[in-house]
């Protein structure tokens, strides 16, 4: 029989509630908590259950992931399951984090389940199959059953079907499908046309994602007295990258004091962005974060003042949801200092 390993948090692992959220990861032999529910119909034996506190995974991610990956070394498994995480945000992010790491290290299929409102969905849906789950744990049986259905397909090597049919969040992949009922494009066109003309419901075959447009801010009227800030997705950081911003698919950002910096010197600053040739930026970081030009213009009195920090993250592969979250974390600092305008340098 094939083997599976399940990841759950401290609550479902029967360690405790919020007060035990700092619980360090352990790998228990056999089935704990929801593993029993999985075991009913899963075409694999759950050989181990991993339990980790949500806060521990959130605050000590690297350590938690390393402990679990090290513990899995040498263990034989065909599938890695996590959750279901329902609407629990930290738990969802933890499931996504560990599934991604396990998939990358062991090249084993992974599967989790979250509610649409769980932030883990946006963060990880392009990396793995996340079943669309309920919002609260009373739906455990239903969510586990949905996971088991897809898990058994993966275990038997059967093709997992389209997102809407299987009930997972679309990963961003679109592929060709032969229609079983062989309805021709001409007939589909007529059906859609007649429905649209008569105001009846129809389903487009190519849904256009809603553009998340931000209205353009009004122009700064008095630049001479305006406070300007520098923000970049070009990955310019102090050479030791103190905030450990990732080189791609970033989830972290940093801010660095430039109140006494006339220009960003090569060797003191560099780029950690993995999406372009870094040679020019490492040679002169100002080409991406133009501190030199802004200090010069400040001296000339072209604008009022420069916000004392620049803010940096990496744009390549970073999801829109993550980018928006980081922006929402940065904005209060800018508002607190009454910044009037931001120069957003992308690459």
């Amino acid at each position, binding site marked *: 029989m094939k083997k599976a390993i399940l990841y759950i948090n401290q609550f479902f692992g029967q360690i405790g509630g919020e007060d035990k959220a700092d619980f360090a990861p352990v790998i228990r032999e056999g089935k704990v908590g929801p593993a029993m529910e999985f075991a009913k119909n899963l075409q694999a034996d759950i050989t181990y259950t991993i339990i980790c506190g949500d806060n521990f995974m959130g605050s000590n991610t690297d350590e938690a992931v390393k402990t679990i990956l090290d513990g899995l070394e040498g263990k034989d498994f065909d599938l890695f399951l996590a959750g279901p995480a329902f609407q629990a945000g930290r738990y969802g992010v933890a499931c996504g984090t560990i599934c991604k790491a396990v998939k990358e290290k062991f090249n084993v299929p992974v599967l989790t389940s979250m509610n649409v409102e769980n932030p883990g969905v946006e963060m990880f849906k*392009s990396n793995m199959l996340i079943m669309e789950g309920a919002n609260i744990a009373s739906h455990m049986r239903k969510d586990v059953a949905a996971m088991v259905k897809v898990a058994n397909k993966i275990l038997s090597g059967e093709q*997992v079907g*389209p*997102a*809407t049919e299987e009930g997972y969040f*679309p*990963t*961003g*992949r*679109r*592929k*060709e*499908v*032969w*229609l079983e009922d*062989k*309805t*021709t*494009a*001409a*007939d*589909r*066109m*007529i059906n*859609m*046309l*007649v429905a*649209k*003309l*008569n105001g009846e419901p*129809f389903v*487009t*075959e*190519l*849904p*256009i*994602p*809603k*553009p998340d447009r931000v209205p353009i801010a009004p122009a700064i009227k008095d630049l001479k007295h305006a406070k300007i800030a520098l923000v970049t997705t070009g990955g310019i950081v102090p050479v030791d990258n103190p905030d450990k911003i990732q080189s791609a698919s970033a989830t972290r950002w940093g801010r660095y004091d430039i109140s006494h910096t006339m220009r960003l010197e090569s060797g003191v600053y560099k780029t950690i962005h993995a999406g372009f040739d870094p040679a020019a930026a490492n040679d002169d970081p100002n080409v991406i974060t133009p501190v030199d030009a802004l200090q010069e213009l400040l001296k000339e009195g072209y604008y009022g003042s420069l916000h004392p920090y620049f803010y940096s993250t990496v744009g390549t592969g970073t999801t829109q949801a993550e980018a928006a979250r980081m922006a929402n974390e940065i904005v209060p600092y800018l508002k607190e200092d009454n910044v009037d305008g931001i120069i957003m340098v992308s690459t």
Partner: protein
Amino acid sequence: MKLEIGNFYVKDITFGKELKFDNGVLTINKEEALAFIKEDERITEADLYIAKPGDKIRMCPVKEAVEPRVRLDGRGLFPGYEGELVRAGEGTLHAMKNCSVLVVGRHWGGFQDGVIDMSGEGQKYTYFGGLNNIVLVADTNEEFEKREQQKKNDALRHAAHRLAEFVGKCVKDLKPEDTESYELEPAIKRDPKTEKLPSVVFVMQPQTQMEDMGYNTLAYGWDMNHMLPTYMNPNEVLDGAIVSGSFMPVAAKWSTYDYQNCPAIKALYREHGKTINFLGIIMSNLNVALDQKERSAIYVAQIANSLGADGAVVAEEGYGNPDADYVGCIVALEDAGVKTVGLSDECTGRDGMSQPLVTLDEKCDALVSCGDVSDLLVLPAMETVLGELEALGRDGMAGGWAGDEILGPSVREDGSIIMENNSMFCGDQVLGWSTKTMKAF
């Protein structure tokens, strides 16, 4: 304007003493047919084959497909292209169904040429895998484009159209098994019942993006790069007014056969007087410069409004750059108050993660998707190859490659192939045959 098409269903094709159609069997005198083809001095080498569904045959590089037909009034099948320039879309013609004339390069292929398999997994990927095909394999003296990725294929395309006409003559005096009749009353003179139905135009965007002449789709022999959108009767399209061009990755191509049999037009006709009032066709084109794209969209929307169209269907031949014409045209129609449905294929990349059309707009809320040009196909070797399989990797065919670090060459030593759907001859069947769609995974 009434067009009658008498159908003759071809069940088998064979070579014999004389050209004839008898009891579903088409017999062709090969020597006579080849002598006729070689009347064009540009043809240096030619042979004729038969390829039927189930045969272990692969064809490559396929350049054009045409349905054999004959006009009972003796007029040429493709006015302005082969034969006298007269109006198409009226009168009676006889057509040989389940049958097409294919032309395949003896050696040289290009971006616009494709692959057809008559059996195995690849058969379903083209409409022509399911037809009884008369296959002309030929070479020409068009030295100037022998090594060009973009080929006009002028001699071979003319040969295909001429051969279809040559073969079709054998059913001129016979009685068809059944007859289709297409008649669209003048747009402002329709019965009250039809007038009450929502009115619809079909907007066609044939491929016309080559600035150099000789590659683009033709309307009565006229290069459609040099025209602005105009109103046409659907019968003109069904009756040879439009001749397919020779420019674009071939999965998105509309062959002349596709125009002659256009399923979208037939479906609109079928619904005419029942669920819609089919006003006719706005024949548009595809362009290179943004102002050209916008100008065509303005014309289309204006004609739709002037005709009083409530709805429209827009079909795009191609993908990539012309997606801008396609989306732009749909948006222009929606902005003009015309409820619009789109017909196209997509390009989502080998991993399926790329944006499906190069430009998107929320106003495109009713799209029919016919396939993915970038879908990767691995197909077994066939006993017989008509043409030259090496062309797939060697000649810059859209879905093939000479070598790849991971995938290896498109054409393998054992005769099996790996390619993108991009090189399937008219594979995405956007004019309406496609039983493929795209889904989110």
